[in-house]
C-alpha cells in the first residue's frame, strides 16, 4: 500500500480505474468517483500500471450490485425482492404443472360429471374447464412478468411499486379463494399446492416491504436513482 498523501498522478493506472468506475451508476459516480479513485490509488501496489484482475472483478461486482439496485437496499426490501424473483420461479413451476396435468384435470372433471348423467351440462362444464386452462396458459406467463417487474421496481425503491405489490397480492388472495371455490383442490391439487406456495411467497414479500425498515427506502428514493 502506498501513502494517501502521495502526489496525484494521471497515470495509466488512474485511467484504468476510471474505466472500471464508469461501470457504476451515474448517480453513485457523481457522489463517489473521486473518493473511490483516491482509495484505489492509495491501496495500489507500487509500480502497478493497470488495475489487477481481482480489483477489476471487485469493482465490476460492486457496480453490478448497484445497477441491480441491491447495494443500498435495506435488508427487508432486499429479501422481499429475492422472494419476488423466487415467486416468478414458483409461478413458472405452476405453469409447468398446469401444462403437464391438464389431461388429468380434464379427466377428473369428466369423471365427476359422469355421475350427473347429463351430457349437455358435462359438455358445458368441460368447455369451461378448457377455457380455464387456456386462460391459465396466458395469465400465468403474464404473472411471471409481473413478479419480475415488481422485483425490479421494488429493488429500485419506487413507492408506487410497493403499493402495486400489495394490491397485486390482494388480487392473488381473491384468485386463490376463487380457485378453492371452483373445486381446484379436488381436480387440480398439484396446481393448487403450487398456487399456495406462490401465495405464501407473496405474503412474505408483502410483510417484508411493510416493515418499518423498508419505509424510508421507498420514501427517500421515489423515481430516480
Amino acid at each position, binding site marked *: *500500500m502506498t501513502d*494517501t*498523501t*502521495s*502526489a*496525484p498522478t494521471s497515470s495509466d493506472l488512474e485511467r484504468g480505474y476510471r474505466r472500471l468506475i464508469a461501470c457504476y451508476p451515474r448517480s*453513485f459516480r457523481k457522489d*463517489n468517483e*473521486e*473518493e*473511490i*479513485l*483516491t*482509495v*484505489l*490509488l*492509495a*491501496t495500489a501496489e507500487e509500480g502497478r500500471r493497470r488495475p489487477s484482475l*481481482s*480489483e477489476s472483478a*471487485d*469493482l*465490476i*461486482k*460492486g*457496480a453490478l*450490485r*448497484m445497477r441491480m439496485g441491491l*447495494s*443500498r*437496499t*435495506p*435488508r*427487508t426490501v432486499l429479501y422481499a425482492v429475492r422472494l419476488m424473483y423466487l415467486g416468478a420461479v414458483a409461478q413458472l413451476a405452476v405453469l409447468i404443472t398446469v401444462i403437464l396435468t391438464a389431461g388429468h384435470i380434464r379427466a377428473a372433471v369428466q369423471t365427476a360429471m359422469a355421475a350427473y348423467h347429463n351430457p349437455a351440462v358435462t359438455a358445458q362444464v368441460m368447455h369451461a374447464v378448457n377455457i380455464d386452462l387456456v386462460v391459465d396458459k396466458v395469465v400465468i406467463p403474464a404473472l411471471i412478468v409481473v413478479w419480475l417487474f415488481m422485483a425490479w421496481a421494488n429493488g429500485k425503491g419506487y413507492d408506487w411499486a410497493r403499493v402495486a405489490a400489495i394490491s397485486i397480492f390482494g388480487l392473488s388472495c381473491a384468485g386463490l379463494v376463487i380457485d378453492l371455490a371452483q373445486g381446484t383442490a379436488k381436480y387440480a391439487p398439484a396446481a393448487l399446492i403450487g398456487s399456495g406456495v406462490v401465495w405464501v411467497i407473496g405474503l412474505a414479500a408483502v410483510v417484508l416491504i411493510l*416493515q418499518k*425498515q423498508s419505509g*424510508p*427506502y421507498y420514501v427517500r428514493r421515489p423515481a430516480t436513482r
Partner: protein
Amino acid sequence: MNIRPMQEATFLILTALATGSQHGYGIISEVAEISGGRVRLRAGTLYTALDRLRADELIEVDREEVVDNRLRRYYRLTPEGGRRLAAEAARLQANANAALKRLNPALGVI
C-alpha cells in the same frame, strides 16, 4: 423482525468507525489491523458496503476534506450503528464464551 447476524466485513467496518470518524483508506487500514491482516477490504467491496450502511442509517458522512487535490470523505457511526455494533459484539461474545466454557473442562484448552 429479528436482526440477522452481520457479515464479517460489515462488523469490521463498523468496528473501525467505533473509535471515531475515518475516511475510506483509513477504514481499510483499520480493518486490516483489527483482523490481524486477515481481512483486506478492496475498494469496490468497501464502497458497496458503505453505500448500504448509509442507506440503513448505520453510518453517516462526518465531513469532507480535500488533500492533495483528492477528496477524502470521513464516515462515522450513527447512534443506531453504535447500538447495532454493540448488539452484534455481545452476540459474538456470548457465543465465544459458550464455546470456551465447553472447551475448558472437556479438552483442557486455555
